[in-house]
């Protein structure tokens, strides 16, 4: 991969990211490259399995195609992928299919910041998911990224390609094993969605109080492509900064980003998404709903309208349930052509007292009323969430309220 000059990469290793607090990479050791190989998912140790279920990855169903990464190496990959699906590690894919080179560090510039540079320099492995043209996968594809070594960096490089006229649902769960609290997760994901193809990508993060997280995601979309991104962070975390970008390069492509975060005390979360509407009649909808229980919460959104007939809406809303953190909503709209329609809504504040009192009139306690409204606020307006997520959301809200 000689596309990038080693000097530029080295320079980029010191480059701070555009958003979020800076993380000193020197604080962390390398993540392990030798990890336990798990033959059958149901044989995963109990504590790991519990963690996986927490982030929506189930092991009881043999029909689901699953890849599990522990630290820097693949630990499990379903042996019998459903028809139309190829899944393996990124390194294997690059070796086995010469054409994958065209997608490898293609949409993501490794010199973007120190996290991408580090991933490039490590020549990191990750998961590779390819849906052949014309195939509509019936079962969701699951990937699970687990951090198990304290004070280490997990560096991953994932590639997802959905061929023309194909479709696929993916659930990605990222989590830590209990003793790996103070660690860093860096995940570079390059996604390519073909003509009239669609990808629904649900990512559930459940980290620990000190974990730092820096995902870097670019999505390239062809004509008529459709992309749905659900990003959910419900549990306490140290520090997350994520700002995935979708490039709608083909006419009529549509994307939606739904972000849902709970910023607990001492959590520092900076999330959002960005859509480049580069082709005629493209559309984007970015919805971010967050709760702060005293943590820092930044909700961003950025729409860039570059082609006629582009239509997009952006919504950043946060509720503050407990003082202590700073909550920001930062919507940005940018257009380089007149025939675009882009709008935004942003709101930061508490729940309307009137709504709480209305529910209390029917006998709910104040806490019950607040929980019900918060739950509604988080999931209302976001469709297509996996069923088990609703339960996780309820649990997280109940737990957070108890902690008050």
């Amino acid at each position, binding site marked *: 991969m000689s596309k990038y000059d080693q000097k530029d990469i080295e320079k980029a290793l010191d480059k701070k990211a555009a958003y979020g607090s800076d993380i000193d990479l020197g604080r962390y050791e390398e993540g392990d490259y030798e990890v336990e190989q798990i033959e059958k998912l149901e044989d995963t140790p109990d504590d790991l399995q519990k963690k996986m279920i927490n982030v929506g990855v189930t092991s009881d169903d043999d029909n689901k195609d699953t890849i599990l990464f522990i630290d820097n190496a693949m630990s499990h990959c379903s042996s019998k992928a459903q028809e139309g699906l190829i899944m393996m590690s990124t390194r294997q894919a690059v070796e086995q299919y010469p054409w994958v080179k065209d997608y490898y560090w293609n949409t993501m510039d490794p010199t973007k910041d120190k996290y991408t540079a580090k991933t490039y320099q490590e020549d990191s492995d990750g998961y590779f998911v390819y849906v052949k043209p014309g195939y509509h996968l019936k079962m969701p594809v699951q990937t699970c990224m687990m951090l198990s070594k304290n004070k280490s960096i997990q560096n991953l490089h994932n590639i997802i390609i959905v061929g023309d006229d194909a479709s696929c649902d993916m659930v990605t769960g990222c989590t830590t094993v209990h003793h790996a609290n103070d660690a860093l997760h860096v995940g570079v994901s390059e996604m390519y969605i073909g003509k009239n193809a669609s990808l629904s990508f649900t990512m559930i993060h459940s980290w620990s109080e000190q974990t730092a997280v820096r995902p870097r995601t670019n999505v390239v979309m062809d004509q008529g492509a459709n992309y749905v991104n659900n990003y959910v962070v419900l549990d306490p975390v140290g520090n997350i900064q994520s700002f995935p970008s979708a490039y709608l390069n083909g006419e009529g492509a549509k994307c939606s980003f739904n972000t849902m975060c709970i910023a607990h005390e001492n959590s520092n979360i900076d999330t959002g998404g960005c859509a480049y509407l580069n082709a005629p009649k493209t559309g984007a909808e970015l919805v971010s709903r967050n709760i702060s229980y005293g943590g820092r919460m930044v909700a961003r959104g950025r729409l860039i309208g570059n082609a006629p007939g582009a239509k997009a809406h952006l919504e950043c809303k946060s509720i503050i349930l407990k003082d202590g953190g700073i909550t920001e909503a930062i919507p940005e709209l940018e257009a380089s052509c007149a025939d675009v329609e882009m709008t935004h809504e942003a709101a930061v504040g508490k729940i*309307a*007292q*009137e*709504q709480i*009192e*209305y*529910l*209390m*009139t*029917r*006998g*709910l*306690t*104040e806490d*019950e*009323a607040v929980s*019900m*409204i918060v*739950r*509604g*606020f*988080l*999931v*209302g*307006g976001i469709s297509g969430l996996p069923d088990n997520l609703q339960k996780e959301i309820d649990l997280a809200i109940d737990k957070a309220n108890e902690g008050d």
Partner: protein
Amino acid sequence: MSLLEIKDLHVEAGGREILKGVTMSLEEGETCVLFGPNGSGKSTLLSAIMGYGQTKVTSGSITFKGVDITYMPIDQRAKLGIGMMMQRPPNVIGVKLGTLVEVTAKNGKGKTGREKEFNMQDFLNRDINVGFSGGEIKRSELMQLCAQSPDFVMLDEPESGVDLENIGLIGKKVHELIYGSEADGSKSVSAFVITHTGQIMDYIGAHKAFVLIHGKIVRDGKPEEILEDIKNNGYGVGDE
């Protein structure tokens, strides 16, 4: 002992004194109506009885079933048996009407599964009050009250905004709510109903009426007589 006793109640809303010494009582089993010009403080009075935060009691007392509830939290008042249909309930985005009805029935004494009677089958899965028409809001409120089954119901203009066809349904349901129904074995309770036209009285009758003007009860007596008087002579004051 009266079911509800209000003594020299002074209430502020939006930094202004709205109720300026309200004294009244309502007996168990009684249905009372409350008349008064726009802005006289009728909704404010109900809101103070329910305990809403936008109304602040500065002096006086409210006693219900012998318990001083003047500063009691709203949900405890609800659990004591007070129920309320607001004039303008808020939207609750993301919370389904069906969810609220279920929780209400669990906390109260009523039943769920009655949406058909209220013509609300298609609304259980909708966010509470969001995009509901005026009449739909009234039906939804009544359905919630039936799930709660309170001992004392306060209705703020139950008939306003309801079309001629729906008024029959609303009237019948309010009657069931107050006087009980054999179908579900519910008993007769007490009620306090705000009305401008008196139309709801055709369905539920009334034992007593109060007139509130400028934040004070200026008159009480027979509902029909008072209504007739208002129809003929007005309140003798303009809008406040």
